């Protein structure tokens, strides 16, 4: 159904109000990031981004995402295969647990790892005896990020695979294809765009996560600060141009995510879960 202009008298008013709300609330903050970052010119913008601490933060952010995102992508496919292709008791409980990280405060998602692996955590002493560092180290950042971003891929795949049904896979199996062949040749091609969509959202959150990683990081400059934490460190040191320059890199990441996400919604809307079809 095509949207048609009705209530001709009210349309301009509604449009103006909508633009006002979105402009002030959402677009203005985005603009301010770049305006502040370039406040003292292009050279002053680039300088903080080429500092060793900033480069280390970018590298660490990429490392953490490179571990967390594939883990959650594989989990998402496994969970969707179990949930959308089989009938078993306790399914809705399982789905609730998969969604749970979305309703936890990011700070709590960091806290739980400290409760397990911190100096006074359940496994703290054992880790200390064996000289393994998790909290205030990269592995802690990975664990916190993995927990926060766990539902993203599964949530895209489960409804889509439920909609698609198992007919094509059943046909392939009946014709003699093996289990893995069926998965690679039938299932994966059917879910690839939704998988990409989920990975995209998962990655954006993994690279931008702040609360959960700030709890487990200890913010050691150049060692355990991811890019969002680097923004905070600079900001608290009153290095505003540097903070906004680092923030602009993250804002750029957000914008690229938004563009790719929108393209996927336009081009492949039939191959995404129903709630993503615009």
């Amino acid at each position: 159904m095509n949207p048609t202009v009705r209530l001709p008298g009210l349309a301009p008013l509604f449009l103006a109000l909508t633009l006002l709300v979105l402009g002030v609330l959402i677009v203005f903050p985005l603009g301010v990031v770049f305006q502040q970052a370039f406040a003292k010119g292009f050279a002053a913008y680039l300088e903080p981004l080429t500092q060793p601490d900033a480069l280390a933060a970018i590298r660490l952010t990429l490392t953490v995402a490179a571990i967390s995102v594939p883990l959650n992508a594989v989990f998402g496919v496994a969970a969707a295969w179990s949930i959308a292709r089989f009938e078993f008791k306790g399914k809705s409980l399982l789905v609730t647990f998969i969604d749970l990280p979305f309703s936890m405060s990011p700070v709590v998602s960091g806290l739980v790892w400290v409760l397990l692996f911190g100096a006074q955590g359940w496994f703290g002493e054992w880790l200390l005896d064996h000289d393994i560092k998790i909290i205030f180290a990269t592995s802690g950042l990975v664990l916190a990020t993995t927990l926060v971003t766990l539902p993203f891929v599964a949530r895209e795949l489960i409804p889509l695979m439920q909609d698609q049904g198992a007919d094509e896979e059943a046909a392939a199996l009946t014709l003699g294809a093996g289990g893995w062949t069926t998965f690679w040749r039938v299932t994966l091609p059917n879910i690839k765009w939704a998988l990409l969509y989920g990975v995209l959202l998962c990655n954006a959150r993994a690279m931008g996560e702040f609360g959960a990683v700030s709890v487990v990081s200890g913010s050691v400059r150049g060692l355990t600060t991811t890019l969002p934490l680097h923004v905070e460190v600079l900001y608290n040191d009153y290095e505003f141009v540097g903070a906004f320059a680092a923030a602009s890199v993250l804002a750029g990441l957000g914008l690229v995510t938004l563009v790719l996400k929108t393209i996927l919604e336009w081009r492949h809307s039939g191959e995404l879960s129903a709630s993503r079809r615009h």
Partner: protein
Amino acid sequence: MTAAALSPLAGKPRTRWKQPSILPGFPLAMGWTLTYLGLVVVLPLIALILRPWELGLSGVWATLTEPRVLASLRLSFGAAFLAALTNVPLGLLVGWTLTRYEFPGRRIIDAFVDLPFALPTAVAGIALTAIYAPTGPLGAFFLKFGIKTAYTPVGVYIALLFIGLPFVVRTIQPVLQDLDREVEEAAQTLGATNLQRFQLVVLPAVLPALISGFSLAFARAVGEYGSVIFIAGNMPLKSEIAPLLIVIKLEQYDYAGAAAVGLAMLAISFGALLAVNGVQLFLARRGRA
């Protein structure tokens, strides 16, 4: 459902926990799902649930009734409630405009609604602070009317408004799209005014989605950290949010206290969710009656 249909035994009552299927890979997929979920979600959750009680029941109670903890819980839940409530009419307005009218640039504007999802929270936090600080453009504007925004609970509210808006818009958009236009037209033909049509036809249809959007925005706002701590000012008893208090307790190596606050947040959120579900159920029953 589909797997069940494929099964030759689907019709028979089964006592087994899983219905048979010709599809392979269940043990591997399910095994991996449960192991992963157990390690990443369930084990940490058990720690969160058990560790507060190291303080004993009275210790947990003492922690949760510390004035600073109480004030922070009140602020986090209060500001989240008000922000989510404000986002209901704002989200309805934006969702309505984007689904009902055609205008140049509509899809671009529609894409921007998701920006709070895509923008890292710390980035949003420092940007909002720059805008609403006393020297910032909107901060100075509101100050002329005697309203301090940044570094007060108002700042917390503004950040949560930013975070929550897409939840309401995205929940109501599909409902507005599917709404039967004929019913509206019938109402119009029968002489209903615009206001009546909205009140009697549109609103009842979108109400469940509005409530869902509200609860999603609320749940996200309660635990929000990154976009809030910069603009909040973090004054004890005044503008300190509950997640920040968890961080402070952890810095003092008060693990059990931090866990107690975290568990309390989870419990209150869960209670709120149950209440929302109750309202939804009530509305659904009334709709059917």
